């Protein structure tokens, strides 16, 4: 994992920024330099391996430093790690920089990482990010389950399973000495280090294991910021973070701290920026889409984010499998005017999709073979639909796309449906479920009647993360049970490649398979929109749509 030239330049720029601000932070008015920003109440106590949502994620990345961190372009830079090396992409040797400490004074050692990862992987701990360790040797042992001894069954009469780990620790994780440990993967993965900046891979101090729940209320980390004393997290209201004086990593804060206020309504947060009560807002409410760029000028941000959106077409539906299904999928895709919908419905805050990943990910492509199926082409769409009708007539079956009506999806679903109706002349409709939970039931029971809204936000900047969890046979988020031997093989070859360039080529080839099969109809990538007040400067958004808080300046 050598740093690219670009990454190197940005590192030195950061280092310079860090230096120049060191003088300023000596000024007595430290209070005024606290940057305020928006957030949302974390769903769980702040335990890194149990934090998989954005509200908790932005706090966790601020108070912890992992082996690597991501720069604005999503490239990794070593933080606690001195080196992450492997000859075969299977056994990785990680050496740590000495001198890192947690804010309680404890040293960050190999054990800080290995113990935390073991904790996250063990199924009796029920950590939501446990699947990040599923490629390590020993995973099946720590995740072993047995039949419920009480003989309990679920609603469908299937016997319930309870955790019964054969081992408390992953056998693939070995501490060599205080600053060295090795990780053995069950299969080669060339881009494995890319994920190490994700919250699931953060180290934990040994104090955490005494009472993990209590630790999650007042977490102790090694990151650029730390909780501003006991009880800094006021539930449902906000959290105050102070700078960590002992932090010497790449993300040295140039401001005096972070005040994160939790909002349930984005419009309220937006009004707070307008009213001068909030410095940085990393989202813009729909109601301000038309005006925010004019109002905030160069303090408004509208750039692509690592969020892919589309809709899945299940294969168990009549008319949607085999050759007929292939034609219909392509016809539907070509009948959607993505340009117009992103312009009109989203005011340009979405970017039409050209692949299955995101423009901010290294390896994104707008010229994949077969990508023309994602372009609006009503003539071809009608032709393909007619060819499919020649195989088996579609009749007057109603085509539908289901969505959860509590997430603001109705406008674009209706627009997509209109576009399909206008092009193909079929009857089609949007099908709302009251909540996401309600749609999940029908999805896992194969009881959908048509397409279903789908979206994915990258956990870490890698093509693999956008493909494997969603389309690999039997993968966790592959709800509509897509399966393709060709795709699976390419994905496996990509993972086993010796370098990232080869891997990218394989992943792109795998996407070309998806473009033919279209298990999901790609629609667009979400943009990150944000605004900041004139009290702050240097607001740059990272690849994960979260501002790089440490480099925001405030006088």
């Amino acid at each position, binding site marked *: 994992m050598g740093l690219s030239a670009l990454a190197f330049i940005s590192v030195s720029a950061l280092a310079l920024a860090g230096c120049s601000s060191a003088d300023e932070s000596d000024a007595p008015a430290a209070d005024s330099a606290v940057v305020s920003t928006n957030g949302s*109440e*974390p*769903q*769980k*106590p702040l335990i890194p391996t149990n934090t*998989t*949502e954005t509200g908790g994620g932005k706090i966790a990345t601020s108070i912890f430093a992992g082996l690597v961190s991501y720069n604005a372009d999503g490239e990794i830079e070593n933080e606690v790690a001195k080196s992450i090396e492997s000859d075969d992409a299977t056994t990785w040797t990680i050496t740590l920089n000495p001198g890192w400490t947690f804010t309680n004074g404890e040293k960050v050692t190999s054990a800080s990482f290995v113990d935390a990862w073991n904790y996250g992987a063990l*199924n*009796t701990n*029920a*950590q*939501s990010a*446990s*699947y990040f360790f*599923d490629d390590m040797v020993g995973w099946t042992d720590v*995740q072993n*389950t047995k039949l419920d001894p009480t003989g*309990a069954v679920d609603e469908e009469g299937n016997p*319930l*399973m*309870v*955790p019964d780990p054969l081992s408390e620790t992953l056998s693939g994780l070995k501490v060599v000495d205080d600053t060295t440990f090795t990780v053995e993967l069950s299969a080669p993965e060339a881009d494995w280090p890319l994920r190490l900046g994700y919250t699931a891979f953060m180290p934990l101090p040994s104090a955490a294991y005494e009472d993990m*729940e209590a630790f*999650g209320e007042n977490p102790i980390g090694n990151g650029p910021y730390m909780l501003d004393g006991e009880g800094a997290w*006021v*539930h*449902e*209201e*906000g959290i105050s973070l102070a700078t960590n004086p002992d932090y010497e990593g790449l993300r040295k804060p140039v401001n005096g701290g972070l005040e994160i*206020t*939790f*909002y*349930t*309504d984005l*419009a*309220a*947060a937006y*009004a*707070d920026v*307008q*009213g*001068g*009560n909030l410095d940085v807002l990393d989202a813009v409410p729909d109601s301000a889409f038309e005006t925010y760029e004019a109002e905030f000028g160069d303090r408004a941000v509208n750039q692509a984010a690592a969020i892919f959106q589309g809709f899945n077409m299940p294969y168990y539906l009549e008319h949607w499998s085999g050759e007929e299904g292939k034609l219909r999928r392509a016809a539907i895709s070509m009948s959607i005017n993505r340009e117009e919908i992103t312009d009109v419905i989203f005011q340009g805050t979405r970017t039409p999709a050209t692949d299955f990943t995101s423009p901010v990910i290294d390896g994104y492509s707008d010229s994949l073979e077969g990508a023309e199926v994602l372009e609006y082409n009503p003539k071809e769409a009608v032709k393909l639909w007619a060819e499919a009708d020649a195989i088996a007539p579609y009749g007057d079956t109603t085509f539908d796309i289901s969505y959860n009506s*509590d997430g603001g999806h109705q406008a674009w679903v209706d627009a997509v449906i209109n576009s399909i109706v206008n092009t193909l002349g079929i009857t089609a409709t949007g099908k709302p*479920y*009251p*909540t*996401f*939970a*309600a*749609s*999940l*039931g029908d999805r*896992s029971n194969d009881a959908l009647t048509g397409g279903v809204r*789908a*979206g*994915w936000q990258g956990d870490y900047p890698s093509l693999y993360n956008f493909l494997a*969890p969603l389309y690999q046979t039997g993968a*966790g*988020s592959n709800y509509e049970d897509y399966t393709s031997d060709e795709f699976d093989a390419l994905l496996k070859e990509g993972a086993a490649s010796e370098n990232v360039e080869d891997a990218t080529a394989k992943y792109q080839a795998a996407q070309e398979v998806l473009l033919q099969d279209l298990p999901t109809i790609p629609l667009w990538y979400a943009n990150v929109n944000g605004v900041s007040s004139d009290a702050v400067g240097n607001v740059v958004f990272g690849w994960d749509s979260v501002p790089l808080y440490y480099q925001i300046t405030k006088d």
Partner: protein
Amino acid sequence: MLWYTGRRVLQMIPVFFGATFLIYFMVFSLPGDPIAALYGDRPPAPGVIEQVRAQYNLDKPFIVQYFLYIGNFFQGDLGTTYSGRPVSDVMAGAFPVTFRLAMLALFFESVAGIVVGLIAGLRKGKFFDASALVVSLLLISVPTFVLGFVFRLVFGVQLGWFRTTVSAEAPLGELVLPALVLASVSFAYIVRLTRASVADNLNADFVRTATAKGLSRPRVVTVHVLRNSLVPVVTFLGVDLGSLMVGAIVTEGIFNINGVGGTVFKAITLGESTTVVSFIAVMVVIFVLANLFVDLLYAALDPRIRYAK
């Protein structure tokens, strides 16, 4: 009257059980698996969902869940939210601020509403009366959220008189703007109720008698007209307190107040029965007590009202 009060308090018991049972059942019947939904598009490792479900008793039949909840309730344990916080903590965070907001709104709407209504009633058909009627009609027809947005924009962003949203400590000064928004609709109703009632009573026999006895005009108006006119207004205020406590969800959202309405709404979308039921149980008690208080107040306002045994 003691007997009457005692009977009313005892009536709370079946109301409490009925309400909690019904609400628990309704949340239980919400479609979808709340635990699976917590993980969104990323299902956790196998066994995690089952384990979490067992932790919240969601693997048990409905009636068992309900009685486990009620059993714990009477031992002072209201359960935990899906984020692992005790529901009692959530209540301690949400109720005080909502209570202050509701009280402030109740204060604004009752004082301003009764004064304006009284003047309008005394000058029926005059200019003040006509304008009061127009303004109240306007307030009733404009939805609260529109008023909230406009107030926030004008007084918060443009004029800068008030903070645009309420901060975590929620001092009274910051609650003035949301309380005004919250009070607006009820204020309009109170103006109209008071006005009609005052205008009615002005022609009543006892007012004519009082005037004939030679009492001063202010005394006739305050003691005889107004006091007797307040019965319908107080009835309205009693019911309104309940809706101000739970119904402030829109206003709370606009001003980012972490109150009861928003918490219950969030809990319902998450399918978090323990939170919803605990909050509703407290709401039921508040509602019943407020109504009891109003009923007792009738006797104080109108000497003709007596409580039968």
